[in-house]
């Protein structure tokens, strides 16, 4: 585990070569995000780079564009509702799978996670076919329902990860002291798994906020990502970049909520 041991295996030249490679790939990964944010403050009129000067005119223009403002509002409403539904349904499904042993449990877990591995465009089209059966038309309610299909398994997945070391004797202790199931959940389980619930909910909201494939069929083309896509396809000016700044900032704001849970599930060394 010590540094000298590592150095003895990978020669110094190889280490340096790999380091340069990793930095180049890292730069490649960050490049489009950095450029999009930089262009938002350009004083030029098109996609030219480097920008001729600094200005806030595109931020102002984006803020004054009705489609973007309306899109932001609709996407925010959909994301919050999706987050709420996913938090409740995802957490309770994770409890069902973790706390109980019953027949068909593995199959149930597979079914619960299925939406995560199927393409959004297929799910979106399929839901569109089903809307008339519920008396729905494409709109906010349909979009929330569709986004929740992705959000619920996401929350369940992250809550299951934070339940993996959960000590069931806590529940038995709580029950033997006279607490009911709901009380045990509220006062014992939920505080322990809350990082997972928070991270899952934040993820579900981000996924909803960025979703294109489902909104394409289920909204009226008026969520923020769809508005941005439409404006990119017809004329390209840096006001899309200005909205991008907002989206990057939102993602950055979400990071602290995700950090702890991600470290638990992905970053621990074996």
């Amino acid at each position, binding site marked *: 585990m010590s540094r000298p041991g590592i150095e003895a295996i990978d020669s110094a030249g190889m280490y340096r070569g790999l380091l340069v490679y990793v930095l180049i790939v890292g730069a490649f990964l960050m490049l489009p995000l950095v450029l999009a944010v930089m262009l938002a403050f350009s004083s030029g009129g098109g996609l030219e780079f480097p920008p001729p000067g600094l200005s806030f005119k595109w931020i102002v223009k984006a803020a004054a564009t009705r489609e973007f403002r309306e899109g932001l509002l609709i996407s925010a409403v959909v994301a919050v509702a999706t987050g709420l539904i996913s938090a409740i349904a995802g957490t309770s499904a994770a409890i069902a799978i973790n706390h109980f042993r019953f027949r068909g449990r593995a199959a149930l877990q597979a079914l619960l996670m299925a939406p995560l591995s199927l*393409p959004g465009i297929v799910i979106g089209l399929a839901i569109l076919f089903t809307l008339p059966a519920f008396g729905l038309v494409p709109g906010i309610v349909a979009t929330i329902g569709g986004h929740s299909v992705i959000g619920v398994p996401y929350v369940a997945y992250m809550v299951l990860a934070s339940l993996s070391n959960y000590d069931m004797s806590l529940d038995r202790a709580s029950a033997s002291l006279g607490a009911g199931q709901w009380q045990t959940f509220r006062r014992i389980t939920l505080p322990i798994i809350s990082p997972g619930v928070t991270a899952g909910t934040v993820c579900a909201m981000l996924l909803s906020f960025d979703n294109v494939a489902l909104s394409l069929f289920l909204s009226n083309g008026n969520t923020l990502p769809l508005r941005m896509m439409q404006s990119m396809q017809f004329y390209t000016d840096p006001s899309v970049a200005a909205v991008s700044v907002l989206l990057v900032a939102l993602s950055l704001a979400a990071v602290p909520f*995700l950090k702890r849970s991600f470290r638990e599930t992905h970053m621990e060394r074996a």
Partner: protein
Amino acid sequence: MTPGTAASLRRWTPLLWIVPAALVLLPFFFLPLVLLFRNSLNRDDPMLLMVPDFTAINYIKALSDPFYLQLFANTIGAALFVAVIATIIAYPFSYFISRYARRSIGLVVWAVYMPLFVSVIVRVFGWMIVLADSGLLNAMLLKLHFLQTPLRLLFEVDGMLIGMVHRYLPLAILPLFNAMKKIPDELHRASANLGATPSGVIRDVVFPLSVPGIVISLQLTFAGALSDFVLPQVLGSPRFRMLAPAIYAEATTNLSTAMAATLAVLMLVFIIALLGASGYLVKRLTPWMTAR
């Protein structure tokens, strides 16, 4: 986690906990999938839109008409290209961060996760800035006199593929990283002790142990690229049609709802087959993980 918990007392309680998820997934996922399949057996009529029927005509058409065959060939070819290139780029990257993670974890892991968290629209927009005729890449190449006229990349297959490799690279890195971080340092040192050269260690120790990671990386990136809508739609060429935009076009502008359903079912079958194949491969290649 052990038998004989509160579970055995109340056999019906798991059902209660699953109700909220069922209320979302039954009407908005499982029922829709059934309807999707049912609609793929209907018939599109130019006058009456979708006519109820029970026919395989759409499947026959999708799998024999040169127009649709070209569509599948384009999509599978592009997805294969993206999967292989992304996995190749990811491999040394994942090796490095899995070996030296604690020293470099902060910035490099950020570079992997950040693009995943930021809207794909922002990423696509960034690539438009790079690839446009007057964009960053052309400006640089012209200035350095590598080119006389700008390269046409945006709204071409090349630009779309670059954007896709970028979009799916993090999905190739994470499984490889997860597979490689499980290789203990002792194994590296022991191999070196026994006289293996650094490249020998990578070839004979790291590579075989990372094969499951490679399979999962290929599967995730392939499935992602296969069903991608945004990149072909925004960066791609109208002359190189891809499956996801085609499904959307059939369902909306072409008013061929049954055909859209058929193409969607075929995409689904393809992705499920892929999942099954990669699951089987991982199981075969890592018998030590299942045999306990």
